[in-house]
Every structure is written in C-alpha cells, then in structure tokens.
C-alpha cells in the first residue's frame, strides 16, 4: 500500500468571473521512501495540489469539489481541522519557497524549532531544546547550540531554508512536501539544500514530494515524476523513463525549450519554443487542454473534441494525450513540422 494516495482531486477557486479549475482531477500516489517530483509551469496547479493535501487552503475562496486523500490508510479530506492539526507537522511536514518570509522575524530560531515539537510530542522544554540543537547540526549549521538564540535576520537565505528543513523534520514526519524549496536561492546554495534533502530523506526514512518548475531539479532529486499542465497531470513516469522516453507532446516541448548547459552548437541553435500560452482555467478547453498549443493535434482529431484519458503506455508510464510519441505515425510528424 502506498503511503499517500490521492484520487481524483479537484480544487476550484471561486472568483467573480467563475470557478478557476486550479486542480482538476489529479491522482497519484507516493510510496514509502521514494521521492515524487511534481513539475510544471506557473499556474499549472502544482502548489494548490500540495496545499490541498495539507488542508492549508482558505475555504472560501477555495473549494474541494472532489477527491480522496488517503495517508497511511487514513482519509484526510474528511478530518476536522483539529484532527488535521495532529497530522500536519507530525506526520506530514511542508517547506515553502521563500525562506525569507516563512520564519517569524520576532522569535528566535530556537523558539521556532521547539514550537512544533512541544505541540506534537510529549517532551519537556529542555529536551526539545536539546533536540533543536541536534537538528541544527543535522542540517549542517555550525555552532548549533549558540545559534539557537539568534533571530532569523542573522541567517542567510540558504541557512534559513536549512532551519525550515530542521523544523519540518523535528517530529520525524513520514512525508515531507517541499514546494519550490530552492527557487529563491543561488545555484550553489541550491545544490547544498538538494544534497541535504536527499541525505535526510534516507536517514529519516521519509517519503518526499518535491514541487518545482525546474526540470533540472526533478532530474536530480526525484525517483518518479508527474508533469502538470493546466490543472491536470499530463504525464507520469519514473524519472529516467520521463526524460529519455517522454510521451506527451507538452513534456517533449518543455524539454526542447530548455537551454542546454552542455553540448555543441548551443549558441547557434534556436530553442523550440511552445507557441501561445496555457489556457484560462476559468473556462478550460473541454477537450485536451494542450490541444491549442499542440503541434500534433489536427483538425477533426478526437482530442480537439473530447478529453483524452490518462493511459498507461508502458508499465508505470502514463500520458494524457491522443498523440504520444510512441504512437505517432510518420505522416502526422511530417505535417506537424
């Protein structure tokens, strides 16, 4: 049984223009000890998916239209706020994009580190403080004991994200959700944080969901990858499958649009841009959501009329498209060019 099982999750936001279908029928599962990467561009619904799991969205304007979220066999979506509080921070922890604003500037690092432990665990203040120092050491903050009494402004961005990770790990959660954990950081600092997450996931025997817009980050950190587009998962596969044998035209285009760090003739070449932009999620296309930008969606194609299902094309490799790479015939490829 998977540690986390999300089934047909739909989260809409009420606006004056109508409902924004931010997450629209998302299903996935995360196995114990594995890392799932959810990747997509802004507005694709990746963060809303995470916040829905955590029950952290303000309702209204958010509204859960459907979906089950089973964590370790227990249904989370029907829990009361009180019951959910026992799960959050204890069983499932989350770290956010911006380490500059996720810490309270008026409390010491030590206070913020012990807060979660005192809420969830039956420990004394002294024991919590001792554990806090150990945690800071674990995330490689030098002079951990002294630095407990510092305020957040004394820490750099990378160090603050390390503190956030330490807080997240303080109650030994079984699942860590990291939402763009390195986006605000410089690349050398990012490398350190990704290494740290990797190391700690093993030590603590956690599962992890890492949410990012950066294909490089998922290539580095994830075992399995789900690509989201316009509120839906359009492709899901183990990391190597996804990168070396992408099936969905969007994934294919996204990989082609990335500037290359290594290789010949990168300066001379052009990038394969994806024309247009993602659809308005107040009124998403009824058929395939990528069809308006898809080079393979032709006139009279069923995918421009009705939505394609998420199909398993190879074991463990799912794609939601009428024109997966492996099924394309030469004629279509030619016209698309």
């Amino acid at each position, binding site marked *: 049984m998977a540690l986390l099982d999300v089934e047909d999750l739909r989260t809409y936001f009420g606006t004056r223009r109508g409902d924004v279908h931010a997450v629209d029928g998302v299903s996935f599962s995360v196995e114990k000890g594995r890392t799932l990467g959810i990747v997509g*561009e*802004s507005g694709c619904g990746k963060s809303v998916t995470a916040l829905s799991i955590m029950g952290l969205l303000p309702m209204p304007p958010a509204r859960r239209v459907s979906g089950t979220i089973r964590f370790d066999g227990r249904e989370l979506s029907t829990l009361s706020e009180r019951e959910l509080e026992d799960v959050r921070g204890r069983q499932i922890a989350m770290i956010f994009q911006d380490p500059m604003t996720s810490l309270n500037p008026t409390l010491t690092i030590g206070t913020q580190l012990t807060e979660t432990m005192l809420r969830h665990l039956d420990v004394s203040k002294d024991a919590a403080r001792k554990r806090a120092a150990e945690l800071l050491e674990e995330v490689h903050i*030098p002079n951990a004991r002294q630095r407990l009494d510092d305020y957040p402004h004394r820490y*750099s961005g*990378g*160090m603050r994200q390390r503190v956030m990770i330490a807080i997240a790990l303080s109650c030994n959660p079984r699942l860590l959700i990291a939402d763009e954990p390195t986006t605000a950081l*410089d*690349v*050398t*600092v*990012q*490398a*350190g944080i*990704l*290494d740290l997450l990797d190391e700690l996931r093993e030590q603590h025997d956690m599962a992890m969901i890492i949410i990012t*817009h*950066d*294909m*490089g*980050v998922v*290539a*580095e950190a994830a075992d399995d990858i789900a690509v989201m587009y316009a509120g839906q998962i359009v492709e899901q596969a183990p*990391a*190597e499958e996804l*990168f070396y044998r992408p099936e969905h035209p969007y994934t294919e*285009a*996204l*990989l082609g*649009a*990335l*500037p*290359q*760090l*290594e290789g010949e003739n*990168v*300066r001379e*070449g*052009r*990038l*394969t*841009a*994806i*024309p247009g*932009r993602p659809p308005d999620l107040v009124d998403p296309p009824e058929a395939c959501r990528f069809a308006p930008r898809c080079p393979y969606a032709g006139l009279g194609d069923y995918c421009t009329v009705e939505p394609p299902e998420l199909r398993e094309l190879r074991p463990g490799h799912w794609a939601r498209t009428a024109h997966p790479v492996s099924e394309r015939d030469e004629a279509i490829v030619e016209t698309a060019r």
Partner: protein
Amino acid sequence: MSANGDGALLEVRDLAKWFPIRKGFLVERTVDHVKAVDGVSFSIAEGTTLGLVGESGSGKSTTGYSVLQLLKPTSGSVRFMGKELTELSRSDLREMRREMQIVFQDPYSSLNPRMTVGNIVAEPLVVHSIGTRRDREAKVRDLLETVGFNPDFTNRYPHEFSGGQRQRIGIARALALNPRLIVCDEPVSALDVSIQAQILNLLKDLQRDLGLSYLFVAHDLAVVRTMSDHIAVMNQGKLVETGPAAEVYDHPREDYTKALLAAVPVPDPRRMRDRKRERRKLGHAIAEGF
C-alpha cells in the same frame, strides 16, 4: 571580444562602483564602502554577446547600469563607439543613449501601468524628438510587429498582457532608437520555460537581423550559454574568469567557475548522478556563506 579591445564596440577598463556606507546622526560620515563592482574590464565586439554571469549580489547588474551610466561609476573607463562615456556632458550622454538601451528583468514593474502600449514604445522617440506623430505611430507598429506583438493592441495597457507579451513590449521600446548595444538585465528570469524560449529566440533573431550587440546579464548559466559568444564570470564585485563561451563552460580554469557550473542541475537524470559526484568532489567549495 578581442584581447586588447581593438575595434570593440564597447570597452570597459577597471570599472568600479562603490556605494558609501554612512554612519552618524545629523553629521554623516562615510565609514566604509560596499565595493559592488571593483576593477572590472571587458570588451564587446560589434554584433556579439557577452554573457555576464554570477550569483545574487555579485555586482553583475550594477556593472550593466554603470556601463550605461545609469549609475555613475566611481572610477574606470567605459569607451563606447570610440567615446569615453564617463567624461561626456549630460547632453552628449543623452545623444549617446540612442545607441545603447536596456531591457529589464521584471516586465511587471518596468512598464508604466498608466501608459498605453503605444505610448510606452513611442516614448524614446518622443524624448529624442524623432519624427512626426504619424511617423512615430507607424514606427511603433513596425517595432511591435518586429517583436511579435500584435500592433492592433497599441491602445491597451500593460496589465492586460502576460509576462512574455510585456517583455516583448519592453524589447520594442529598447529597439525604438535603433541602438547598437542593448544591456539585457535578467530578461527572462521572471518567465516560464516555454515563454522564456520564445523571448530568447526573439533576442537571437533580432541580433542576427539588426546586428545588435548584447551585454547579457543573468544568473542562469544555461540561458547565458545559449545567448553568448563570450562569458565573464563575476563574484563579489570582481571578474573571476573571462573567455570564449565554449572555453569557459567546457574547460573552466577557476575554482569558483567550476563550483558554479557543477552546481547547476541539468535535465538528465543519469548525467545528474555523475555531476553530483563531481560536485561532492569540489566539496561545495563556495556553497553557503557560513
């Protein structure tokens, strides 16, 4: 970028920009300086791109602004089209500004929300009193078409457009005076990958068609590589390494450059495993400012 800068469009020598740190109440005195840019030299040949990379706070944007004299350099020389910019009078500098323009990072805050698209793009023409009203209207339509923006939308306002479309407006404005040099300050870092590719391709096309030179300032090493003929790596206000792009990327000499390159995640899981090993070997030489 020729070694001695002969025949270069832009030649920067020992450029420094120090910001004073002042202390004291009523009577302020300068106690120290932040050396944002400290002894930077490079040159850019006509029609080529110099990519200026570095992490946040390395001084790369300050360098771009100092080249354009948007910030007055503390010392050093900036020769552009054979003229020493640091010694020009205000009016002469203004004339030179026709030849050198800038595209900013954030297409949300760099366009005046109260001006129409047409007026934003026409503004440089108005400021430099070029053409009649009608000429300018025609020119604006031309420019917008060049950057792939629907010229029928000249009466709309920036907020009606997405980040990518706004960046096109910003580029059209930069092109209005037919400049020879454009400083691109993180022009795609606020954009999603698919839109980023559109803008990078546009900048490449414009360079080819108009013979533009770019000083391309960015933190994303892959983006800089696809745009640049030469690379300058900056760290803490100083140039760490410069050279032809392929040379710097494939055979970096300095430890800082090596560590920076090794830290970039690449979209290739197997290659990533090797890179992680290389990275550990370098021992995060510079990661974290502990």
